[in-house]
């Protein structure tokens, strides 16, 4: 078996804040294989963005990647690389596309310059060659009249165009892995589809793997081969996309699926998961989803669930894996009982 392109092993990224240590990413492991698109899903605050930033070591004080974590990529541990070597990876072997195209570009440089900069950093291209490369990239991401657009500033472009620029910037060096952190959240629905299609098309042609971070299971269904569901700084379920949609195991995943609007579905109210994500400075003992769970029982309070293997390539961090009969015992979650009036 070929080794995975990227392998994250027990990643813990903690933030040392005044109100305590926020364990935003708390022992996450995952892998991305060459050529695949892996989806990472979860509510905001589950640690998915921090995981993404940790891969490129873009975490700054008060955040810290704890010792014992490892991120292996192309045979190297990114976390032990020298500063100069990790810079060689950033934008070159691993590129990122951020959530907010409105703010991800520097307002005082032309978009052409910003794309060309990537080539200038990682190759010995001349200024002119890099500028030509930028125009080529603009054409690649489907921007009309690329020569003219290259000389424009970010504020002169629409949100969708800007996200294309960001993607162009990410693909300049033809990276092995593209990390896309909610690349479409800030865009109009119609533009969202275009951007996702563009990403899928380009990476298919270039053979790039994608780590696609999103809170939208619909996006996952259309784009990803495998999915990782994160909750409270941990992976709670991992499966192939079809497995996940057919037999979701973790109650949190069930909740997310229930909260997903379906085309042609009944017009009934969308199910929501009661309660909120606990504070990262104070994760509950036992199962972190317990208070919001419809099945939780005593064991969930006492024992932090491990990742149970429940099928081929399918794991779930839920004690239901060993006590499946408990699934019959549905009850109102604690979070819903406490805040009953509010919901």
């Amino acid at each position: 078996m070929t080794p995975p392109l990227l392998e994250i092993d027990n990643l813990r990224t903690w933030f040392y804040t005044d109100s305590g240590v926020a364990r935003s990413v708390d022992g996450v492991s995952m892998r991305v294989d060459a050529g695949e698109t892996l989806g990472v899903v979860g509510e905001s605050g589950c640690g998915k963005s921090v995981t993404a930033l940790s891969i490129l070591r873009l975490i700054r004080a008060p955040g810290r990647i704890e010792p014992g974590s490892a991120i292996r990529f192309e045979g190297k541990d990114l976390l032990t690389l020298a500063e100069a070597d990790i810079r060689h990876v950033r934008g070159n072997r691993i590129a990122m596309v951020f959530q907010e195209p409105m703010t991800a570009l520097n307002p005082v440089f032309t978009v052409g310059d910003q794309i060309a900069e990537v080539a200038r950093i990682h190759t010995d291209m001349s200024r002119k060659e890099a500028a030509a490369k930028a125009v080529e990239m603009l054409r690649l991401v489907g921007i009309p009249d690329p020569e003219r657009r290259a000389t424009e500033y970010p504020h002169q472009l629409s949100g969708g165009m800007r996200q294309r620029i960001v993607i162009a910037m990410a693909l300049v060096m033809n990276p092995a892995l593209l990390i896309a952190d909610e690349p479409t959240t800030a865009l109009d629905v119609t533009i969202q589809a275009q951007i996702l299609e563009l990403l899928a098309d380009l990476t298919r042609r270039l053979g790039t793997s994608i780590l696609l971070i999103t809170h939208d299971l619909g996006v996952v269904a259309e784009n990803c081969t495998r999915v990782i569901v994160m909750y409270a700084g941990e992976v709670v379920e991992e499966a192939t996309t079809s497995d996940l949609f057919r037999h979701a195991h973790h109650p949190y995943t069930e909740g997310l699926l229930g909260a997903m609007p379906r085309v042609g579905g009944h017009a009934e109210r969308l199910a929501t998961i009661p309660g909120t994500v606990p504070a990262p400075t104070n994760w509950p003992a036992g199962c972190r989803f317990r208070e919001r769970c419809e099945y939780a029982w005593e064991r969930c309070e006492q024992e932090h669930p491990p990742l149970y293997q429940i099928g081929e390539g399918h794991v779930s961090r839920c004690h239901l894996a060993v006590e499946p009969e408990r699934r019959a015992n549905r009850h109102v979650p604690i979070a819903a009982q406490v805040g009953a009036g509010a919901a």
Partner: protein
Amino acid sequence: MDGASVRRRLVRDTRVRIALVVLAVIALSAILAPHIAPYDPKQQLDITHLNGQPPSLAHPFGTDPFSRDVLSRLIFGTRVSLAIALSAVAIAMTFGTLFGAIAGYVGGTVDAVLMRIVDAAFSIPTLLLLIVVIALWGDIGIVSLTLLIASIGWFTVSRLVRAETLVVRNADYVVAARALGMPGWRVLVRHVLPNVVAPAIIASTLAVGNVILLEAGLSFLGIGVRPPTPSWGSIIQDGSERVSDLWWLTVFPGLAILITVFACNALGDALRDALDSGQLLSSFDDAPLSS
């Protein structure tokens, strides 16, 4: 933002502790001036033998050309300088806060007109005008001096408070209060003002330092606090004709000003940092790059 964590941050900040101790010592010496000053600050002790004497045991900060004890004048000067600074800032801040809050709260034309006034005030050389006015009007008292200083000190705070008010005005609880029929001025006093105090307090702390500097500067030009009343600036003025030999008249009051203003500014900076990073950290998960 979380009030408790701001407080925690302030208490842990060394700057805050040092600044508070320094300011407390200075305030105490102002209050207790008659008890701790070794001499009468206005008394000319011995005009023939004690004029312009360098620091000695009897006169640790020396004497001035009128044979007055500089240490005593400095201690009493603290009263004058602090009183002017605190009252000018109190007046300016009250006025500025009200001005900004009304502009922000009422909005529309009122806001536009009021803010135009502030813009204009920012673009004129206020210090020069102040000097012109004070100098030409001659022997003005400490009260008028304070009022005049206050009159050029409220622009910044009014801008700050207005910006803050604009935010608060649309907050749910303010909208709710208005919807419930609470009269405008009551909403302003009960809901808006308490929420704009934080920036006003920071501005005040920094302003006290500035006013101390301003008063000292005016007194140094001989147009601020008039003799024989001592203020920090006027003691330096007493020695300004002979700085080459009477250096103690310059050095000690200047250090007093420097230490006080430094403490005020350090405190203001610490307050600002505490409030600022409070906002920053609350969203740390979204912006792990911020440091």
